[in-house]
């Protein structure tokens, strides 16, 4: 199959993720959209790796996964504690620097 199709898919996924980040209010959904964008990047990296015939892109994809995992850990913790204090998961409620 033509590898360019994978790139189209990656762009589509990224666009979905980006629009999700921009239009949704719920922090969890936002988070999921970010993950979607990261994975779209990963797909693009792996595709380029395949197209160019070297492994650099795949290695970077691994790094991205590790960073994404760490981000999820920190980010979810923040969201949980935020939800505890505000009883809301809307990011628009978090527009102030302090309570």
């Amino acid at each position, binding site marked *: 199959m033509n590898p360019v199709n994978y790139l189209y898919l990656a762009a589509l996924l990224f666009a979905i993720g*980006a629009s999700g*980040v*921009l*239009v949704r*209010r719920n922090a969890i959904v936002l988070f999921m959209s970010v993950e979607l964008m990261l994975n779209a990047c990963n797909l693009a990296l792996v595709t380029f790796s395949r197209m160019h015939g070297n492994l650099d892109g795949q290695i970077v994809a691994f790094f991205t996964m590790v960073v994404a995992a760490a981000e999820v850990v920190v980010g979810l913790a923040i969201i949980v504690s935020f939800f505890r204090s505000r009883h809301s998961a809307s*990011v*628009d409620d*978090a*527009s*102030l*620097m302090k309570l």
Partner: protein
Amino acid sequence: MEALIGLLVGAPLLGAAVLLCGGRRLDRTGHWLGTALAAASFVIGLILFIDMLGREAEQRAMHQHLFSWIPVADFRADVAFQLDQLSMTFVLLITGVGTLIHLYSVGYMEHDERRRRFFGYLNLFLAAMLLLVLADNYLLLYFGWEGVGLASYLLIGFWQHKTSAATASKKAFLVNRVGDIGLAIAVMLMFTTFGTFTFGPVLESTGAAGEGKLTAIGLMLLLAACGKSAQVPLQSWLGDAMEGPTPVSALIHAATMVTAGIYLVVRSGAIFNASPDAQLVVVTVGAVTLLYGAIVGCAKDDIKKALAGSTMSQIGYMMLAAGLGPIGYAFAIMHLVTHGFFKAGLFLGAGSVMHGMNDDVDMRKYGGLRKYMPVTFVTFGLGYLAIIGFPGLSGFFSKDMIIEAAFAKGGAQGWILGSCALLGAAITAYYMTRVMILTFFGPERWSKEGPDARHPHESPKSMTIPMIVLAVGSVGAGFVFDLNESFVHWLEPVTALEHGHPPMSAMTITAGTVVALLIGVGTAWAQYGRRPVPVQAPRGSLLTRAARRDLLQDDFNHVVLVKPGEYLTRGLVYLDHKVVDGFVNGTAASFGGLSGRMRRVQNGFVRSYAVSMFGGAVLLLAATLLMRAV
């Protein structure tokens, strides 16, 4: 002997320093200290005078170099004194009349709790005035000139709790400042022209400078003289200066300080001799002022202001004589000295009257005081006879000489100046007779009972003795000076005497003067002696009303100088607010507005930041792709 010259200035200066810094400890003795130091200065002056008489006329000038004041490369300004016949005359007048007035003030200021300070200022004045007449260069003279201005300011405003006194002193100071600028410019011009401002070199090398430059220097000197001597157009301050205590009016604003302008013109005679244009302006100023002051003096009901108008007019005579050149210098100084005697005496008399009348100055509320104040009456009367030029008294000799010299100027100028002087003599006789009648003759117009009651009484000895001495001087000085023309010959080495030739005989002119005097006295008697004097001043003719307002001098100044000045400052303030401040404030406001708009971007909503980032990334990407494509 030279060493004594410094002491002349030093004694009163020491008095001023001790009295002004000594504090309340000196309250009980300070006035005697001040008087003693003034008297010491007078005694030193007498010793120097006798010493001077013992030498040949050409050898009489003495010099004393004290120290180098400002030595910078070629520029030299020294504190050095020159005592010649002209300075000597002034020294004796200043210290003599000064001592008498110190003595008078002891009684006059007895109930003033700030008497010590008053004497300190008086001594300061004496020191500054002596410095002025003893200086041997124009820069040191300028120092003394400012010193007397300061003393005058302090003493006019001595009762500064009265608003009128405070504003009067400010007015005197400001008007004098205009004249002082003239002196400053004259000194600078001298330095650029002659390279020095010592009297000797400047006055001997006038031939080397162009006439235009000399005229400029002469006119600037005249401006200075006009300010200090209250001559038109800078005369407005003298009437208000009468707010000061009466001894101050007598010493500073009648006998000595106001004649400093005459000293300046006579001292700078060589400059004026070489510039006929400047001389013409001097005589014009003199002639205008002598009539101006006389007319003002006719309309005033305030005894001191009437005398102030008279002072202005008499100094006008001196200015006129000084502008005539070598035929007039000696007579200007002679009239200055006799005027010093009789005008100081008249002011002290006026002070004595006020002392007995609870400081009331309105002559319309006097009348018939000769019974209550015999000594004041006699001394004032002698001063009165002297000033109107009663034959045989001092004013007669000096004024007659000036009128003669004015006619001797020659041509149409001589006739105009001579007639002005004669007319002035008639008006002088008129207003002085008016003062005399209103004060000492006629019915008693003051209230005798009620809260406003007056109890006229003779003044204490410390006040009457100086009045008696000055009255003797007013009677005798002219005769002594005229004996073999002794005064004129005494001044000859300094002022270079020339005899004028009037177009008619001296006897005719004298007769004319006497007729003018009789007309003046007769008119005044017809108006005030024969008819009762209303206590409330009648409305009077247009001229009378104008003269009461100093011939609209203040109104003129207000319209021509004060108002435009106000508009100018208002305009400048407007400019400052709107343009200068406007630019600064506008810049700040525009930055403030801009940052206010920028702040809205930082709204705290995470998704709007995300949009910015996203937009930015898209823009960068698009830009990169675009660059690639191109």
